[in-house]
């Protein structure tokens, strides 16, 4: 049993990503979408917390990333860019989806 977590708010404007990280379990996946993609960039305090999330797969929606001018080379290690089809696949692979708004 596992959960797909989606985060759509900037981690610098809300505590949404931090709260998601605090509640994600081993085997879960976290997908950053919309303004949530800003949380995937290295060189911030939050990036360290992301890197420390053990057993949690990290994904980012590539369309939202490209829209905001962020190169995939800047993503924290292990974070995978996926497209909309990949989003659908993730939804089917997990037992539930939890949106952190």
């Amino acid at each position, binding site marked *: 049993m596992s959960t797909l977590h989606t985060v759509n708010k900037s981690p610098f404007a809300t505590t949404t990503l931090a709260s998601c990280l605090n509640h994600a379990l081993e085997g879960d996946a976290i997908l950053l979408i919309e303004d949530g993609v800003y949380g995937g*960039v290295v060189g*911030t305090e939050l990036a360290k917390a992301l890197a420390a999330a053990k057993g949690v797969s990290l994904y980012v929606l590539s369309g939202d990333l490209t*829209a*905001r*001018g962020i190169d995939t080379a*800047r993503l924290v290690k292990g974070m995978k860019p996926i497209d909309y089809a990949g989003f659908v696949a993730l939804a089917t692979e997990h037992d539930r989806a939890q949106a952190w708004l």
Partner: protein
Amino acid sequence: MSEIKKFLYVNRKAPYGTIYALESLEVVLIGAAFDQDVSLAFLDDGVFQLLKKQDTAGIGVKNFSPTFRALGDYDVTKFYVEQESLTERGLTADDLMDITYEDEDDDYEEKPSIRVVNRDEMAAIMGDQDVVLSF
């Protein structure tokens, strides 16, 4: 001729996730018709609005970032960007678009519109305005 006032547009939101950034730009363009002393402030998530290489083809919304580069033609030439906001987000001034204007008082020399300031300087800029519009 009416008195010229100092207008500051404060941008604190990232683009695309909400409508604030685009609405601010629209109001700046409208306000530019009134010949006031206009400054733009970019702090907190607002600094994301000025990132280079934005490409919104994949999300089906308009990429309005090139419009910032046109503001110089409307005498909007002061873009104050807060250094601390950049640093907190893992960014530097090199990550921002090249935005310039032609200085009509200096033989139309091309000059940078973006001025990176620290938090104290930003506070002073805010405290020096007649009108502050927040987005």
